[in-house]
């Protein structure tokens, strides 16, 4: 009796598709829109897509790292708003040279507080960040009295114009910032021990502990990175708008969260990647852009985004479910049994 060939073609192709499904999804949607959406594939529109993704793609970097570490950060939306308000609110007195770093540091501090509460006070990150999200909403209102902050000085306008200026097709300085951050963090997460340790901490804390990795430090670090990238995304967006509003980041939380999941970063931690989240955000944005170009309403957008998210989650859950069913079973034994005419199960 020979050992059955377990590595059939099928079992090689499917995992490959599975691993790269976000890239496939990206190309499928891109191809569809290029073929059918009016005025889609031209430099102007593609730049529009890039600049719309710039903020959320930046925010998704840190959010993905938190998820990879096995935690959740619900406070990113309000950190975006906070950073915008600080960055523009302090500009008249101190200039962007001070106000932007202050905004980014504030984002990191929020992350630090989140991280400390999660690791030292041992409160679930869902609760901690839900709490800080609520607190920050109040802080934003309290500090502005409900007003939006706008700058109409020449400096503010020239900065805004500079950030939105097309350097070459698809690239403006603000998009460049996001692309650079994505590239840096993707490299760090893949190629350095520091980055890989996040996967370790999220995948299995005990293993990480045995390997001598201080989980707490990495979790705090992940939250700080999340605060940092959310603040960077928020403050640069506000600078390009020359204004910061009370609900700048309100819609980002659910958007970034679903994109990160679609990108293949699991909520259980230890899986996924920064670049995948970026591609997922881009994919969603291409879809949204196409929906608008077709002249369809938000209801279509919401429905399609929900459907994609639901299918991805369902597929993933079903894959694990099937895997669990197979775990512990010995396929060749089953085959022997089947050959012997015994029904399996």
């Amino acid at each position, binding site marked *: 009796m020979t050992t059955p060939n377990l590595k059939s073609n099928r079992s090689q192709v499917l995992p490959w598709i599975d691993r790269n499904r976000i890239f496939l999804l990206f190309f499928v949607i891109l191809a569809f829109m290029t073929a059918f959406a009016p005025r889609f594939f031209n430099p102007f*529109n593609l730049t*529009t897509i890039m600049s719309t993704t710039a*903020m959320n793609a930046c925010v998704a970097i840190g959010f993905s790292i938190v998820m990879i570490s096995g935690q959740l950060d619900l406070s990113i939306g309000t950190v975006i708003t906070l950073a915008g308000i600080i960055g523009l609110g302090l500009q008249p007195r101190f200039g962007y040279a001070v106000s932007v770093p202050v905004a980014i540091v504030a984002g990191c501090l929020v992350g630090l507080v989140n991280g400390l509460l999660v690791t030292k006070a041992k409160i679930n990150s869902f609760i901690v960040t839900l709490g800080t999200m609520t607190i920050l909403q109040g802080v934003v209102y309290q500090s502005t009295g*409900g007003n*939006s902050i*706008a700058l109409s000085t020449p400096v503010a*306008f020239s900065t805004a114009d500079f950030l939105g200026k097309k350097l070459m097709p698809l690239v403006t300085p603000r998009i460049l910032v996001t692309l650079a951050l994505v590239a840096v963090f993707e490299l760090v997460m893949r190629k350095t021990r520091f980055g890989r340790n996040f996967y370790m901490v999220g995948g299995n804390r005990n293993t990480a502990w045995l390997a001598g990795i201080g989980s707490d430090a990495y979790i705090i670090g992940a939250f700080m990175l999340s605060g940092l990238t959310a603040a960077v995304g928020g403050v640069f967006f506000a600078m390009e*708008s020359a204004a910061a509003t009370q609900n700048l980041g309100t*819609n980002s939380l659910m958007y970034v969260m679903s994109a990160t999941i679609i990108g293949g970063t699991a909520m259980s931690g230890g899986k996924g990647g920064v670049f995948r989240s970026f591609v997922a955000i881009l994919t969603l944005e291409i879809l949204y852009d196409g929906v608008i170009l077709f002249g369809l309403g938000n209801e279509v*957008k919401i429905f399609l985004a929900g459907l994609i998210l639901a299918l991805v989650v369902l597929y993933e859950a079903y894959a694990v479910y099937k895997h669990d069913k197979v775990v512990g079973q010995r396929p060749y034994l089953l085959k022997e049994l089947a050959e012997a005419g015994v029904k399996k199960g």
Partner: protein
Amino acid sequence: MKRLLLLFAVLALVAGTTFGQSAAAKKNLEDSLKVDVSVLKAADNQPLIVLSTEKKVIPARPANPEALPETDPLHWYDMEYAGWNTKKVNQPKSPGDGAIGKKIIFIVHGDHPWTTACILGAKKVADAYKIQFKALSPNWDLAVQNQMIDQAINERPDAILLIPLDAKTAPQQARKINEAGIPLFLFNTLPSAEAMNYCIAWTGPDDFGQQRKLARVWADEMKKRNADAKSIGVAYVQHAPGGSPYYARCWGPMSELSGYAPSVNTLIKDAPGFDADKASQVVGDWLTRFGPDLKGIFAADDSAQAIGIFEALKKAGRNDVVVVAAGNSRQGMDLVKQGKLFAITYQTAEGDGALAVKTASDWFNGKPVPPVSYIPQKIITKANVDQFYPAQW
């Protein structure tokens, strides 16, 4: 020789088409001028396009309005009179070849039953002029609205009509459209004065003027009911922070009454959002806190907020409180009809969108357009509520 002939041929062709074009343009303009949109009606059987008959008096700007107290009407000068004394920048010239066949992109702020009615009204006028009309809604998301503006610029329409999502973010959006050389018409919410420089015209409700008017009706009724009271305590349920209604529907009436009815004094103001249950909780607690001292409530929204307020009043067994609200929703009109809400403002949603398209059409037709036009102001009370049914939304 051959080249010369070719040159002549090309020149003749160019001249011919130019002449043909100008003739066609003239014909188009004549046809456009013949279109009569004044016969159009809104869903509530009111005429679709009516201009405010009231002459808005523009006072001189104080040196520093922000330095004045918030209860001084002139503190709000830059907001209330935005658009009146602006210097227009880099404005495109009217093509003067008629509105028929033009293409406009209509960008609103987000999905809401009000918006649906507004787009409906705009569409009616656009159809009358056979304008290609495309409406976009960014679902209350600033990043998406910016994206839609970029896409609209890319599409190179003959005009962009825009409700800015936030007064303060409007200048940068308006600048962008202006620099692309596309005619811009702003409407509905008042942007900050800076944005007015970059648009051809603004149309919409005179929110401040309207709320001032409502405030007077409100104060009169409160004085009537509390004839011998020296001080009449009132509260304001505010709009969501950010847009012009947040200011116009709280400090508008407050500053008006500081002169018109000084005995009315503000006990408290708060922005509980647009949930009926939240409004009910907040107002219920106010009634506990102030008891009979609270004699009037001014609400920024006549639908969910107003319903919540009346639930709280009912729980406390109070029917002496004079409640007025801004807006013109069905729920609000029903409350007026039942005698619960004392007064609301008439604010035509369809007319708002329609006036914006009408103004753009006038501009295409080469007519002069005023920098600011208001939709009419009316106060709806139990006496005249029937003529405003059925509600637009």
